[in-house]
Each structure stands twice: as structure tokens, then as C-alpha cells.
């Protein structure tokens, strides 16, 4: 046992020694004094069953500490407790503040691996209850994220419509185009508008461009959604598109997705989820 390696132990042992020496010293002094002392002085008026009390002046040290205690007590009653007492919420705010600072410094410029790991962690807590641990939507209970965010998904959106994102221009009705035209527009969006810039059907791109007018009414000529009036398709296939969905929520044909804009996720965490979800797309 290396008791003396610990500062606290050393201090405690030193304190114990000091108390022992002082006790012995002080006791010895008063025992000697009791042997020689004579009682003298003026008696106070009170007398309890024959036991009197001398009118001694207060010892200076005792009087000072008594006065000091009174002053401290007044300060504590009037200002100390009411104005600056411990607050649980105050401690919580400090805890959050220090965590936020640490988080922001550590993840100021996260690399792809960090984002993927963070995204997977957040996904398992926040998204997996509906989309499933693997993101497959658990047999149709929520969107299958493996089939979401790719070219086929655009075709599906055009044929089935898109609902519940609460964009100012409203919901996208089903069946704006027939299946063939939808495929062409999907090719155009993937090649020219989205951040993927690649299509499985390059031959259809020009046909899609010709049909784009139908979509441009809401999504704008450039597909950027006219400054937030409709979904911004130029980030389709990118983490940002997922971040937008997290902000708006969804109420589609399968079910409801709540908004994730109540401060539960930081911006970095949202991007991380976006990166992770984008990586699930097959």
C-alpha cells in the first residue's frame, strides 16, 4: 500500500497529526491553568440554582468570528442564496455549453469516415425504429432506404406523387407523366440536375429535357426548387437532400415521418445521417 503517494491521504494524515498535537498542547495548558487559577470578577445578575456567571469580556477571536458569522449570515440571506444559489438548470446549461464547444471543435471539419460512423450511430437511435436497423423499412413499415434516392426512386415519385413535406407550393400529385416519360425525366434529372451527374439511360436525357417544363413549374428551370418553394433537386443523391427531408418531415403513402428540427440533431449530425443514408442507396 503506497498511502503517501496520494495527496489527499498525505493531507489527511498531516491534518490528523496537527489535531493530535493541538489537542494535547491545549489540554495541557488548561489543566495547568486550572491548578493555579482563582475565581474573581463581577457576577452577572442571573443565577441558576446557585450557579453564577462572571461578566467576562468576550475573547477577541471568538467575538470576531461571531460577528463575521452574523455578517456572512446576513449576506447569505439577503444576497447569497436569493441571487447566486446553485441551480440545476444552470449546471445543465453549463454541461450542454461545454459539450457543444467540444463537439464543434472536434467535428469542425469531419472527414468521410467520421461522418459515416457518426451517421450510423445516429441512424440506429433515431431512424432505425421506423426504417429498421438495416434501413430496409421493415417490410413496408417505412421507406426502404436502399431503394430511395436513386433513378428508380424518381420514377416512383413521379408516378405516385410526393406528399407531406409541407413545401409552400404544396404536394406533388401522382401521375403527372406516364411511365415512359417519367423514366426520361428521371434520366435528365440524374444527369443534368442532381449532384450525381450520371444516368443509367443516357439515351433518354434529351427526351427528359423536353419534358422538364412540367416539373419546372414547381422545381424551377434549374431544378433548385425556386428558393425553398419546392424540394431542391440539384442536391438529389447528396447528403444535403436527406438533411432537407429531416427538416420537413414526410407524410407519404406509407406513413408519417416526423420532423427532426427540434434541436435533437446538430447540423453535423444531420449531414452525417445524410451521408450514411445516401450510402445505403443501391
Amino acid at each position, binding site marked *: 500500500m503506497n498511502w503517501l503517494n496520494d495527496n489527499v491521504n498525505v493531507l489527511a494524515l498531516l491534518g490528523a497529526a496537527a489535531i493530535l498535537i493541538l489537542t494535547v498542547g491545549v489540554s495541557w495548558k488548561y489543566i495547568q491553568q486550572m491548578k493555579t487559577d482563582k475565581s474573581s470578577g463581577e457576577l*452577572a*445578575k442571573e443565577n441558576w440554582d446557585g450557579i453564577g456567571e462572571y461578566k467576562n469580556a468576550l475573547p477577541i477571536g471568538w467575538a470576531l468570528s461571531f460577528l463575521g458569522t452574523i455578517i456572512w449570515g446576513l449576506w447569505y440571506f439577503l444576497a447569497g442564496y*436569493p441571487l447566486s*444559489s446553485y441551480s440545476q438548470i444552470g449546471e445543465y446549461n453549463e*454541461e450542454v455549453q461545454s459539450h457543444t464547444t467540444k463537439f464543434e471543435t472536434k467535428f469542425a471539419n469531419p472527414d468521410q469516415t467520421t461522418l459515416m460512423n457518426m451517421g450510423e450511430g445516429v441512424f440506429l437511435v433515431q431512424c432505425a*425504429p421506423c426504417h429498421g*436497423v438495416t434501413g430496409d423499412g421493415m417490410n413496408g413499415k417505412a421507406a426502404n432506404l436502399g431503394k430511395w434516392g436513386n433513378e428508380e426512386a424518381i420514377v416512383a415519385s413521379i408516378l405516385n406523387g410526393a406528399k407531406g413535406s409541407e413545401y409552400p407550393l404544396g404536394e406533388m400529385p401522382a401521375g403527372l407523366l406516364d411511365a415512359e416519360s417519367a423514366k426520361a425525366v428521371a434520366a435528365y434529372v440524374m444527369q443534368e440536375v442532381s449532384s450525381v451527374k450520371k444516368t443509367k439511360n443516357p439515351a433518354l436525357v434529351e427526351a427528359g429535357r423536353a419534358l422538364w417544363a412540367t416539373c419546372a413549374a414547381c422545381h424551377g428551370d434549374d431544378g433548385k426548387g425556386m428558393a425553398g418553394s419546392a424540394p431542391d433537386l440539384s442536391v438529389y443523391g447528396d447528403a444535403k437532400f436527406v438533411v432537407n427531408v429531416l427538416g420537413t418531415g414526410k407524410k407519404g403513402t406509407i*406513413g*408519417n415521418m416526423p420532423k427532426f428540427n*427540434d434541436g435533437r440533431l446538430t447540423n453535423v449530425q444531420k449531414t452525417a445521417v445524410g451521408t450514411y443514408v445516401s450510402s445505403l442507396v443501391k
Partner: protein
Amino acid sequence: MFHWLERNPFFFAVGVFLVIAYAGVVTILPDFMESARPVTGTKPYTVLELAGRQVYIKDSCNACHSQLVRPFKSETDRYGMYSLSGEYAYDRPFLWGSKRTGPDLMRVGNYRTTDWHEYHMLEPQSVVPGSIMPAYKHMFKNVADIETAYAEAFTVKTVFNVPYDQADMPKLGTFDEAKKALMDEAALIVADMKSQEVKEAFKRGEIKEIVALIAYLNSLK
């Protein structure tokens, strides 16, 4: 110096009482005055939500699920903003819970939806692998007790002045008015559900317990 005090034990006792009473006044009263008021935006439950709340209590959901988010980062990360006492102003009784076997439900309305609750109540393990929560299939069979829920709302309005029928507050009115408002509210939830049994019962004018319970859970924000 204080001999006069020692000779007057009664006034000494009064002095001690005053000093201690002052400490009580400055430490207890300000907190009470501030936090016991309903938080802005806190509203009494609608009749449908109250019916759901009665189902929640009847089936002892509060035995495993608390409704109290404590002010720690680990809690607010998972359950949302910590609870304030003013948020419980219209909870009779409050459902804080003393033990978390399941997660806290104080703000479950923010992150779960009608269809999720439906899957979850029918078969918890289908959406939460490894969950130990039992299934509550009987909620899809039993009919919610609307009369008692209305009686509860009417009682707290009359006895405790809970602000029903005031500006920006839920309407209560007569039982027939309340029933009509409740059917409209339930229609929205039934529309989001998948169970044919519940939908058909609703067409017959019956509201199953699950509908009321989901209305209540969605209202927890």
C-alpha cells in the same frame, strides 16, 4: 451583550422563528410562484386525449414509462427538452413514474407517429428488435370510454377552473358538441391507421381504445 435575550425566552423563540421563516420564504416561495403556473402553450387535454390517458393509466403504461425528462445532457439528447413543472399543470394525476423499464414518453409525440404506434402496440418486437414490451392487442378490440373522459374534463373544468372553452384553448361544450369534435379528431388518426377492424368500427361510430391512446401519445410534446 445578549443577557437581555437570555432573560426573555419567549422573544428569543420568536426571534429564532422569524429567522428560520425568512429562510423558508426566500428559498421556497419564489420558485413556487414561478414554476407552478402553466407554461405558455400548455393546453388541457381534449376529450379524445383524456380517453387515451385513461387507457394509458388503466393498462399501467406508467409502471414502465416515466413522463419526466431530467435536466441532464444524456436525457435531453434522447428524449428532448427537459420537463418543467408548469407543463404538468393540467395533468391529474401526473404520470412521472419512479422507474424506467421503458423509455421516457414525455415528448414521444415529437418523434413517433400514428402508424408507428399502431405497429408497436400490435407487436412491439416488429419495430423494436429485442424489446421486452408486451403486445397490447386488446386495445384494438376494446371501445374507448368517451363518457368517462367527458365527465373528467367537465369535472376539472367546473371544480378546478381548467380553461376549457376559452380563447386558444380546447373546446368542451355539451357532450354532443364534444362528441362531434372528438369524432373529427379521431377521423384524422383512423385515416393514418392500417387496421381494417379499427376503420370499420369507426364507420359504425365506435372509437377503439388504440385510437384514443394514439391521440394521447401524439399530444405528448
